[in-house]
Structures are given as structure tokens and as C-alpha cells.
């Protein structure tokens, strides 16, 4: 472990990846507090509709963050995470319809999340790259298929309606605050996981699986654990999304939902802390707000995605950091801050 830290920590690649280091602490704190203040003020300056949109964005951002954890640190791109979210959502919805107490509902949701995550982990832990993507895609589609076909329990295509949030978070604004708190806790937790020795090993596996194996790391076990952790956050997102809609149907777990989570990550910035939130905000605002005024919203989303991949491969967050660095370089007359270096191509 120590030898690994020694080699990896010295590498420059680590620092700008999160975009947090290398800038004065004060600026960073000010930005965070301004954003927090804005998020807290939202229910007081706008209407219920926009507050609900805020809840939806934060809940979707948690799902995107769970995909980001695997994809950013582990290089494991999942196209099936909506399936895990749906498992949690259906667990909650079904037990709510059956009249279970809140704690039991959450227990069922947690149990299903862990079960499905474990299945995801078992089938995918020995794969990587495109194979990992295909296996998670298939696993996600199985979750969708079960929700779609097992109509006696899941309501089939029609889903389950009439689910109510617990009393304390029933009003839209308390629910918003609850989602916000959970989002912040999840983001901090994922950040700490990413910075932990566990996260370092994941990054090592991403960069060179064979080297990590030769160092004696049990690769499959690490991938399995990463999937369990990531799956847990996907499950949290699933519960929040169902509470938001007070409804669940198979579209929560379909391929489009999984793909949207990935698009949010790539658009916002793969492997960045704030990327999932930025990506979720953009995708949802285009999907829900722009579509009111403009029929071709999906074209806009597609064009933005392509433009982001070409011009800002590190997503909007990464692109923003480069831009700030460039402007600062211009203003101070110094050469621009070093552009985010390319990730070393993996495979060893």
C-alpha cells in the first residue's frame, strides 16, 4: 500500500482531476458557500415548481454521482445503474403499498439495492472496458424487464401510483431540503471514498490492471466492493426519485434512464466532484424546461453533448477550470495554467 501511495500521489495527474487543489482555499470556500446559500434560499425566492425541479436535479445528481464514482475512479462505465435505482424505488413503493412502516419500507429498499448491486457486482467484477459496459447494460435491462413484466407485484407498464412521502417531508420545500442534505452528504462521502486508499487502488486498477494485480491487489474484490458502494448511492437516488414523483414505473430503470445518468456525468465532467450536479442540472433543465418552449429539446441535448465531448472532454466543469486558468494567465501576463493533463492510456 505504501509503495503505491508513493508512486501515485507524486503524480501530477491526481491534483487537477478534482479541480479543487491548486487554488486558494478562500476562493474555494467562498464559491461553496455562495452555492450553498443560493440552494438554501431557493424555496424563499421562487415557486413550488422550481423548488421541485431543484429536488429532481439533486436526486438525479446522486444517481449520476454513483455512476461517476465507478467511471471516474475505476474507469468502469456502467450503463445499468438506473436498474439499481429502480430496484430500490420498487422496493420502497411496493412495501409502501403493502402498508409497511417507514423503517420497513427503507429496509426493503436497502435490501433490494444491496441484493441487486451484489448481482451487478458478481457479473461485472471480472470485466472491464466495453465488456463491463455490456454486462451492466444487460443487468440493467433485466431489472427493467422484471419491473415491466411482473405485473402482479410491480404493476407492469402502469407502475405503482399513490405512494406518499413521510409526513415530515411531505411539503415540497421540506422534501427539497431533505434531498439537498442527502445530496451533500452523498457528495462528501463519495469525495472521501475517492480520496481514500480504496479510491487510490481503484484508480490504480483503472490505469493499469495488470500492474495492480502483480502488486497483489485482488482486482475482482475491489471492483465488487466499488459496485456495492456505488450501488448504495444509486439506491438512495432511487428512493428519492420515487418520493419525488410519488409514483414508480419501469421507465425509472430503463436504458434511457441509465444513459441519461451517464450523459449527465460526461457532460458535467467525468471524475469531478461537482460534475454530476452540473450535468444533472443541464440535462433536467433541457428535458423539463426547454421542452416547454422548444420541441427539438433532444436535438439541443445531443448537440451540447457532442460539443462537450469535442471541445471540453473533461466536461463542463473541467472546461470551466481550463477557461479560468487561461483567463487568469492572460490577466497576470503569465503563461496559462497548465491544461489538465491527459490521463495516461490504460492497459499494461
Amino acid at each position, binding site marked *: 500500500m505504501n509503495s503505491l501511495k508513493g508512486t501515485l500521489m507524486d503524480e501530477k495527474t491526481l491534483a487537477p482531476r478534482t479541480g479543487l487543489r491548486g487554488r486558494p482555499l478562500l476562493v474555494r470556500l467562498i464559491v461553496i*458557500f455562495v452555492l450553498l*446559500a443560493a440552494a438554501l434560499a431557493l424555496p*424563499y425566492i421562487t415557486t*413550488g415548481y422550481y423548488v421541485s425541479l431543484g429536488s429532481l436535479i439533486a436526486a438525479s445528481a446522486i444517481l449520476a454521482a454513483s455512476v461517476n464514482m465507478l467511471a471516474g475512479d475505476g474507469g468502469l462505465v456502467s450503463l445499468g445503474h438506473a436498474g439499481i435505482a429502480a430496484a430500490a424505488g420498487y422496493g420502497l413503493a411496493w412495501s409502501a403499498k403493502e402498508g409497511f412502516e417507514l423503517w420497513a419500507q427503507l429496509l426493503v429498499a436497502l435490501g433490494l439495492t444491496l441484493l441487486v448491486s451484489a448481482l451487478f457486482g458478481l457479473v461485472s467484477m471480472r470485466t472491464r472496458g466495453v465488456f463491463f459496459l455490456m454486462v451492466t447494460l444487460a443487468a440493467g435491462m433485466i431489472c427493467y424487464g422484471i419491473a415491466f413484466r411482473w405485473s402482479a407485484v410491480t404493476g407492469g*407498464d*402502469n407502475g405503482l401510483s399513490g405512494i406518499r412521502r413521510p409526513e415530515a417531508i411531505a*411539503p415540497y*420545500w421540506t422534501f427539497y431540503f431533505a434531498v439537498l442534505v442527502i445530496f451533500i452528504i452523498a457528495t462528501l462521502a463519495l469525495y472521501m471514498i475517492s480520496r481514500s486508499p480504496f479510491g487510490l487502488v481503484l484508480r490504480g486498477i483503472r490505469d493499469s490492471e495488470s500492474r495492480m494485480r502483480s502488486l497483489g491487489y485482488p482486482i475482482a474484490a475491489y471492483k465488487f466492493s466499488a459496485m456495492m458502494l456505488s450501488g448504495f448511492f444509486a439506491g438512495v437516488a432511487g428512493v428519492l426519485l420515487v418520493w419525488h414523483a410519488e*409514483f414508480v414505473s419501469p421507465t425509472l430503470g430503463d436504458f434511457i434512464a441509465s444513459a441519461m445518468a451517464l450523459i449527465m456525468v460526461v457532460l458535467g465532467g467525468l471524475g469531478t466532484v461537482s460534475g454530476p450536479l452540473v450535468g444533472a442540472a443541464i440535462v433536467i433543465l433541457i428535458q423539463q424546461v426547454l421542452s*416547454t418552449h422548444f420541441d427539438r429539446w433532444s436535438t439541443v441535448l445531443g448537440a451540447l453533448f457532442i460539443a462537450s465531448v469535442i471541445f471540453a472532454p473533461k466536461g463542463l466543469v473541467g472546461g470551466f477550470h481550463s477557461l479560468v486558468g487561461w483567463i487568469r494567465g492572460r490577466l497576470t501576463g503569465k503563461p496559462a495554467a497548465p491544461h489538465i493533463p491527459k490521463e495516461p492510456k490504460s492497459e499494461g
Partner: protein
Amino acid sequence: MQRRIAKRGFLALTAFSAAFLLAACAPPGAQQAEEAPAGEGGVYKVGLLLSQTGFAASTGTDLTRGWDLYWQQHDNTAGDFTIESIYEDDASEPETALTKTQRLIQEENVDVLVGPILANNALAVADYATQSEVANLTQTSADDLTQRESSPYVLRTGAFAGSQATFAAGAWAADEGYMTAATICPDYAFGWDNCGGFASAYLEAGGEITQQLWYPQGTTDLSTYVAQLASANVDVIFAGTTGGTDAVGFMQAASNFGILDSTPVVTGAATTSSAPLATAGDISLGIHSVGYYAEGLESDVNDEFRAAYEEAYDAIPSVYASGAYLTAQLLDKALTEANGEKLTGEELIEAVKTVAPEADDLLWGKVSFDEYNGVVAPLYVRTVEKRDDGKLWNVVDKTYDDVSQFWTFEPEEWLANPTFNQQFTHQ
């Protein structure tokens, strides 16, 4: 390093919790300012939730056309009110449908919601509308919305698929003297309902179903299934396709296997709607179908509607367009009867239920509503024919009046049973 990060995270968390506690103390201002200004100078706001994008986009186009046409003809006026229509796209997806509903209700303060058409969207929207006490004239095939999940705020003024429409197909097949039948439907809620309606009415009337085939959602090439039908040796075949590519796939395969020449085929309205007919062409001639509306229905109101529709859009009106037009008719009549009183919520639903049976110029014919807010309307058995101008359309063969969502069954018994599924295929 680790400690520094943990410390920073802890700091942020503490600061946030403090801010959160402060913020949560005062109830947000939005809570008080939510009340909508009532009666804004005689404007009656209608929020239409339609699938304008996504896989069901064609239904959104047709519904918009039918709705617009009515209000163009009536100068956007219903009684003392000026109708203001606000369109929203649900992207054929329930999460979006729900967000758009929130916008229509909270931001636009609509007086009534019309739509949506997809079953899962409709269930999500109706639940929210009920909680907000906003009337919802829904257009969906989700039977449960007017059965097990019935709400005083939700009225099904249109139901384009589901089990109700296909009762007439089963009754017709039995009335024609066909003793044995085979069915083919997609293997999910839409298909279970379609085949369920046919099978319930057909078995009730003494017929016998020898074979039931189910194909997975999204299947376009149905030849392996239709080949089994070709050797089924039955008197009549029921096909409950979604009206998408599976409808064309069914008609082409049935034509190739010679079924269309040898065995009568009856389908749901979706299979012989204008899009599949245009693609399949002449092979579809003579196929029977059942629906609440037929383009070739002979009545004054339909002659006028069809002529205006064809002139405005250069297309033959579909069942969906007719449903939107009917909904507009019902809303107009309810608001006209109200004598200037702005009807919303439960009052509007009750008013529509009252005016419908008295009206004699409704597009679908004689329409009323049952106690569960489901539509009771005539069902037309239709046949595909070629019009003088070469276009294919559906003309009326036979009419079954006053068909309710329970057919001839007792509502209590019906509701005690589960919804149709793979195992429970008929009442």
C-alpha cells in the same frame, strides 16, 4: 492529507447544518402565495399534456389537431369564457409528465388538465391532479384510473385502447357465428387489456378460444407468430397490436400466409389507424376493427368534423383526434350550461357527467359516464375500405351502443379480480 480533507468536509457539514436549521425555521413564502387568483376576466385555462416527442409523438399531433380544430370553429369561446390552451410535452415519459403537470398547475394555474394518453403517464398525472384538486379529463387506456384507483377529479373522456373497446370485437365475433378464435397481442399491459376485453366478451357469448399468442414488446417481424395462426384452423382471429410497426408487421405477415383471404380478422382501432394503413396499403382492405370512432361514421357532426379536419390538415382524422374534439365538445357544453360560473375541480367533472347524456351532437354519438367516471359510449365495428380518392379508411359495419368499461359484468365482481395479465386473460 486524509485528515485535512475529513476536517474540511466536517467543517462544511457543520456550517451547512447550521444554515439548514436557520432556514428551516421559517416556512417559505411560496406556501402562502400559492392561492390562484380566481376568475381572471373570463379566461378559462386548459392545460393539455400531450406526447409531442418520444415514441408516442404521433398521438400528440393528432390530439392537438382535434383540440385546435374545435376551438377554431368556436372562436375559442365556451359560454362566457375565453378558452386559453396551454400545451405541454410529456416526452412519452412519466417523470416528465409529472414535472409538466406541476408546472401547469402551479405556474399556469390551469383550471383543467386534458390528457395524457399513455397509461403510466396518466396514472402519475391523475394522482397529482387529485392531490391538487384539479380536474383531469384524461385520454388514457389505463383502466385502473376509473376502476381501482377511481378519483372524483378524474374523468376518462377518451379510452383508445384497453379492454373496453375490444368487448365489441368479442361480441361481434360471436354474433357473426364464429365458433372458435385465436388471439395475438403484445405481451404487456396494453396487449393483456386488448386481448382481455375480446376474450371476456367472446367467451361470455359462448365462443371458444383455442390459441393465444403473445409477442414481446418491440417485435416488428411477426411472421413466426402468424405462421402458427395460419395452422390454427379457427373461424376468426383477433389481433391487438399497438398500431406501431407491429401493426404493419402483422398485416404483411397475415397477407403472406394467406390468412387475410381465408379467415376473418378483427383488431383494435390502433391496428387500422391511418399510419399503419398507409404503410400496409391494399392488403389491409376488409380487415375489421373496433373503436369509439370511425372516419366513415355517417352523422352530421362527423361529416362536418371530417371535412374541416381534412381541409385544415390534409389528413383523415384519427381516433385520437376525435377524442380531443369530443373532450372539447364536452368542456364547451359544461361551461355553457354553467351560466358564467367558473367550474373547476369536482364541479367540472360533475357538470361534464351531467351534460354529456343530454347532448345529441357529440362526435362519438351518445356518450355518458358511469359512477366510476369511465366513459360509456357506442363502439363501432369498422371495416377498411378504399375511398373514392384512393385513400384507405374505416367505415362502420355495426354499432354496439352504451358499452361501459364493465361490459355485461358486475362492477363489484370485476373489481374483485386482478387486472389482466399473462395468467388472468379474461373475466
